[in-house]
């Protein structure tokens, strides 16, 4: 009995602790959103007067539009290229048995463990010695160096649960290698590919250390935020911060509901066949 009570106590403590930690993770974001509605030019708490003015200002600002556009273009291109590279990379990582695989697994993950600031600087050095002037295009390349390994990891998790006999069966039933890829491998791995793509987009969208050194004259949203943060407070910082958080949240919701819709569709097939 006593043992039981101890157990329950331990359980409750863990639940409370977890709730606190999650709260800890979200408090700063709440702070940013609060600050974006504060009327004062210099942040003070408690907030004396509220306003939407900074959002109006942001929506009409041409420089904000440029920043969002650059960030969006970079993130989209990074997503597309990373997913393509990582799809094959993940097959080599987890699907096939080949002599160099263990070494490949370790080498391909190295960039994840690498200090991003140093990676960014090294790439800057690399670009300038090759005579390439840094711009948002070089940032796409730089982001990929860090993001491709992460997407390989994400897709690999799906590949590990993929049964190679499915490919063999399709091959045995007369399909060519291309048909096997299109009819079997791609559709079955699609959840991993989609989540890999989502991660690629959001990680690129929020990346700061790599962008800082590799965008040249162009600027992404996180870079602009950082520049403003160190040079002094302006209400545009929390406003733009809130906007990027909001857009990330929307993307995730769209992804989540898309996933739900697919589930619903398959559930419908089940219902139909149950009749």
């Amino acid at each position, binding site marked *: 009995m006593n043992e039981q009570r101890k157990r329950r106590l331990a359980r409750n403590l863990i639940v409370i602790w977890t709730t606190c930690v999650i709260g800890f993770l979200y408090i700063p974001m709440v702070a940013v959103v609060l600050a974006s509605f504060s009327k004062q030019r210099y942040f003070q708490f408690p907030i004396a007067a509220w306003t939407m003015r900074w959002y109006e200002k942001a929506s009409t600002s041409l420089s904000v539009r440029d920043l969002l556009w650059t960030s969006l273009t970079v993130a989209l291109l990074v997503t597309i290229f990373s997913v393509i590279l990582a799809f094959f990379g993940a097959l080599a990582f987890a699907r096939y048995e080949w002599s160099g695989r263990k070494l490949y697994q370790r080498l391909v993950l190295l960039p994840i463990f690498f200090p991003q600031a140093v990676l960014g600087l090294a790439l800057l050095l690399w670009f300038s010695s090759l005579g390439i002037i840094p711009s948002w295009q070089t940032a796409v390349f730089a982001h990929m160096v860090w993001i491709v390994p992460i997407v390989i990891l994400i897709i690999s998790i799906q590949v590990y649960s993929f049964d190679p006999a499915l490919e063999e069966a399709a091959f045995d039933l007369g399909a060519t290698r291309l048909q096997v890829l299109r009819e079997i491998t791609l559709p079955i791995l699609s959840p991993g590919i989609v989540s890999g793509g989502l991660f690629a987009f959001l990680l690129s969208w929020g990346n700061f250390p790599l962008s800082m050194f590799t965008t040249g004259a162009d600027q992404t949203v996180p870079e602009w*935020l950082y520049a403003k943060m160190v040079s002094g407070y302006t209400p545009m910082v929390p406003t733009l911060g809130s906007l990027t958080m909001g857009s990330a949240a929307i993307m995730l919701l769209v992804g989540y509901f898309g996933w739900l819709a697919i589930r619903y569709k398959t559930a419908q097939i089940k219902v139909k066949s149950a009749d």
Partner: protein
Amino acid sequence: MATGNKSSIWRINPGRLAAIPASVFLLIGFAGPLAMVIGYSFMPAHTFSLLQVPSLENYVSVVADSYYISFFWSLFLASTAVVILFLVCYPMAYGMAKIFGPWANLVTALIILPLLISENIRLFGWVLILLKNGILDGSLKYLFDVSASGLLYTVPSIVLGLVYVYLPFMLFPLVSGISMVPESLKDAASDLGASRWEIFWEVELPLSMPGIMIGGILTFILSLGSLAEAKILGGQAVVMIADDIESAFTFAQNWPKGSVLSVMLIGLSGVVVFLLFRRIDLDQIIGRR
């Protein structure tokens, strides 16, 4: 026996073929820059070409200069952050692996979500909280007439930032490590007379070691090379090594000096990662094979 040869329906080994795109890309985008940094570290100071006579001059000057201070701070802050992270994350990871059941998915989602938001926005949130007249200071003044200014731009605030930003990187490896411990082994240990503490010490902790090691080393390396935490939350309190590297490259325009510092940081991280990778099997950790 069977898995080893599945690929032979393809005439060329498809694994090697599939590895080519990512490998070539990382060769150009990762190995190339890395080699270049190493190359520059042997060039005379303030030169912008790799065609000079190589020397160890930079390494000597780095040791002679006071750079060991920022190395020391980085190591100290990273180690502190790792210890705190382990203590914060272990109970939570235990809950996610063993107690929460279906709720663990929700907890996972809630912890991944902030990762997808730029870390300097989140760190800026802490600035707003810790600032003089910020959320914490302001609330305390308003409610109790007590001031809590002077929290920002201190060493503890940097540690807070590191713990905050790298929490998921400790948590998730711990979760996977703990869930690798079969429940039946704990039951067996208990059946053989072990107390709860003995079960934890003799069974759970050693068997979840791969997860603990990955989490610890991952967060250590990430903290060691971090830049934004110390700059945004630390102000001028402490200079971390990544900051030194940045100013050597940009402000001081001394590529060879920056390269030497980079090589030393990379070498330090590299040794740790190498030791980790030698001890674990990635197939087992990621694929649960």
